[in-house]
């Protein structure tokens, strides 16, 4: 596990360097406290205690926790989590299908993890709260959104320990999550969306119904979008282990047609629901893809 000083596996400093000026701004109103970025529907101030740290000269004395002093005889200051106007919950698909990668290339899961890490970092930098939920058929873990570095560190630790596998049931998971999230937030779904498209779309609509903003990063490998296999190939399903032998050359045209319809369905469904749909092919560097997306989003 990398330490929180920049040694995270999924956080590449070079990638970050290219994104230092980018922000992820909520489109709609978000619940929280205006802290410079996001509009809040609420008035007043509300601060939530986050954690202690040692007092250093220059800290505001009003923030010294005297109770800790009495207990430990050392000076600590309270660090407060400001309730941002945006909570971001990253939903990371960690099913078996996400483990696919072409030889010599990055796997979809690794790509998604990189994306997750960068998004998390962006949120942290914006002082927005970010949470992470990993799932396959079930929730693997669910970290609520917080805006502290310690939380981010935990998030990275969990991310790095996460192994993809298991079958997918995206609609069920999304519906469950949609019911759980009370406050409005920005939902970032990073997945290959291999579920029943109509059911997945309905689940996404559920989020929108609950007034959440949704961004989907549809992660696919180039092999899935081009299907450049030749001859007779025995394909093994990464989730079910089912095996099927076929003439890849013969089927290619039909497969691509199905794949295009699949993507087109989500594109259209997301457009109808006001969801940002981002095609994230692993052949494009994630930082480039994200930069383009954020730049375009911010221009709108």
């Amino acid at each position, binding site marked *: 596990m990398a330490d929180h000083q920049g040694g995270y596996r999924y956080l590449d400093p070079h990638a970050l360097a290219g994104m230092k000026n980018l922000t992820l701004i909520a489109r709609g109103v978000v619940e929280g406290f205006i802290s410079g970025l996001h509009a809040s529907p609420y008035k007043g101030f509300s601060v939530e205690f986050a954690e202690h740290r040692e007092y250093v000269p220059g800290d505001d004395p009003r923030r010294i926790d005297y109770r800790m002093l009495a207990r430990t005889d050392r000076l600590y200051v309270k660090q407060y989590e400001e309730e941002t106007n945006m909570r971001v919950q990253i939903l990371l698909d960690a099913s078996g*299908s*996400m483990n*696919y990668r072409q030889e010599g290339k990055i796997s*979809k899961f690794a790509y998604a993890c990189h994306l997750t890490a960068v998004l998390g970092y962006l949120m942290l930098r914006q002082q927005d709260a970010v949470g992470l939920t990993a799932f396959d058929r079930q929730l693997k873990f669910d970290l609520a959104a917080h805006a502290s570095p310690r939380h981010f560190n935990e998030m990275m630790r969990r991310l790095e320990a996460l192994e993809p596998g298991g079958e997918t049931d995206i609609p069920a998971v999304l519906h469950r999550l949609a019911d759980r999230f009370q406050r409005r937030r920005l939902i970032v779904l990073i997945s*290959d969306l*291999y579920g029943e498209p109509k059911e997945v779309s309905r689940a996404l609509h559920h989020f929108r119904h609950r007034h959440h903003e949704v961004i989907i990063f549809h992660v696919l*490998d180039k*092999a*899935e979008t*081009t*299907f*450049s*296999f*030749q*001859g*007779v*190939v*025995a*394909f*093994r*399903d*990464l*989730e*079910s282990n*089912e*095996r*099927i*032998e*076929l*003439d*890849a*050359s*013969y*089927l*290619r*045209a*039909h*497969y691509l*047609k*199905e*794949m295009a319809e*699949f993507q087109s369905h989500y594109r259209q469904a997301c457009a109808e629901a006001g969801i940002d749909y981002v095609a994230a092919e692993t052949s494009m560097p994630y930082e480039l893809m994200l930069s383009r997306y954020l730049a375009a989003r911010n221009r709108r």
Partner: protein
Amino acid sequence: MSFAAPLFLLTALAALIPLLLHLFYRQPAKELPFPTLRFLKLSMEKTRRRKRIHDLLLLLLRSAALLLTALGLARPAITLTGALWGARQTAVAIILDNSASMGVIDGDSPRLETARTAAAQILDQLAAGDSAALLPTCGRPFPDAEKLHRNQGLLRRMLQQCTVSYQRADLPAALLKAKKLLDEAEAPNKQIFLLTDMQQVSWKSLADQPPSDGPSQTTPLIVVDCSRAPKPNAALQLVEMSRSVPVVGWASQAVITLWNTSEAAQTRRVELVLNGRLEAAGPEIVLPPLSKEKYIFNFTFRQGGLQQGLFRLAGEDGSRYDDGRYFAVEVGQELPIAVVHAERHEIPYLDDTFYLEKALSVGLESLGAVRMTRVPVKNLAAEPLEKYQVLYCVNLPALDSQAAERLRSYLHSGGKVVWLCGENVRPADYNRMNDSSNGELLPAKLSEVRAVVGRSDRDSWHISFLDERHPALKDFLQPPALYLSVLVYKHVAFSVAENAAAQTRVLAGLDDGQPLIVERNVGPGKVLFVGTSLQTNWTNLPLRPLFMPLIGRLTFYLTELEDRCRELTAGAPILLPRSIIQQAESVEVVSPGGETLRFQLAQNGSTDQAAAGDKQKQGGDFRYPDTYQIGVYAIRLQGDAGQKQFAFAVNFDPEEIDPAKLERSELLQRWGKTVIFAEDPNNLAATFAMLREGHGLWEWFLSAVLITLVLETLIANRFGAKKSPQ
């Protein structure tokens, strides 16, 4: 279909390889992980049926390509011989067209020589055990022809002995003969070779034959056209002697038809050869290209008796077989005739015999053609009538029994009697005379004397009918005015009895249907009755231009001068009817080459075969078939009645001159692919190779393989993967 390399057919089993691979071989599949099989399954479902068809098509195409390759390697060929495994025993019929046109010179050799070369090549191709028959179309038949022989030496000798004949070939008939011959052969391979110049006249009988009488799938016909570009040729096609009676010293005329069959003008000269000596030569005649011209040749016979002549074209050209035509003519000289008369009139021109004697003496006697004797009727009984060839009985009263009997004997000895009417002719008396002579003195019963005097319906009769087939009358039919202008004022009517009608012939008739001149055979003799007188109060006939030549023609006809000379086409048999030969004991035939053959005849009307010689008496007639040599054949009858001579001028078939050829398409249309045409008669190697190996089909199979492979590639790629974008 046959295969030149049949062992390669075993490689056709390779066509099973794609099927076996399809059934049993599974290409080892590389296993690859994939995120989801969802879309793959969907695609498989949707393309399953089409993939099956695609795979099946590919399977069929691949199997077909292998099969076609195997078949092509086996070198298939369509053979008309039906031989599957190559050469088998063969029977060949070689029809050799040796008609007159095959004597035409193409280049530097006659067509028959080309045909012989082709025939020799055919014989060279035969192997031991094969048989062949040679069928010359014309000429004297060979004893060994039209039979299958294995002895090639015999066939080659026959081939060398075949010469150009003067006849016309009948190729359809020859073809039928060849086919029947081969139908009986046991050899599995049968072929008919026709070596010909494809002259159209040789195929004249083709329309009368059903197509099934020709070649067939099992017995194909190979036509070798032996004609090429002929040398320029002019032919003497026809000779028509003039209508005048051939008599010594009298001018004769021959109308000669010349035919230039070449595309260049020809200059030729006509010559007359009589009895082996050049008698006369005409001037040079220029014949335009591809033209027929008539040339009139005038000449005079200087001798009487049987004359053998030849009109010929001087000089050499493309064919010597059509340069001359023979003829035979009996030239009249001092033929003994008698004019039997009653009382002579004091005034000569009022005598009944005046005009007759004038016609005979001026027209014929003065030329030495006849020797006329006047016999008073009272001397008739005592006169040796046998020395006269013709008796003219002019206005005689009915004869007494003795005279009548003399006349009857004369008729039975071959004499000819012509009755001419007059005032002395009383029908009743004549009828009695005739009845007492067994009805043999008159050709018909006389009924009455009819005259226009006292009639109001007409002032004359005229001749409205002449027997156009009668040898003495056929030249007087044109123009019709010749005989239509003959008026009759008085005549004796006949009544031809039914039982006598068959023996009686009406030579001339009047416009009211009454016969005027009637003829009848009495044994070897003849009797004619002219129902009018030669007095001008009876008829104007003596004053008409017709009269003198008619008397001359009639006289020569009765002397059988013309009857003794005939013209035949080469190959046609000489026929002498029973009526001519019945009194002869033997027949001598002298051929143009001088060969003399004598044949004994059976006696008196017997229909038995001849006692000696190979020429038979057929149905009572004498038949001599060996007329393949052109020229004049002299036939002499020997018997108690003395010698009689006939002459037959045998010439080439004039239709053989026509160079028009039958189009190949006509034969192909009739017989289809069972007819093959050899292109070069001097080199039949290609034809033999094709017969042996048939029409090669391997190119077609190779093309089929290529097409199959192209289709296979197209189908494989059409349904296959498009190149993935890299």
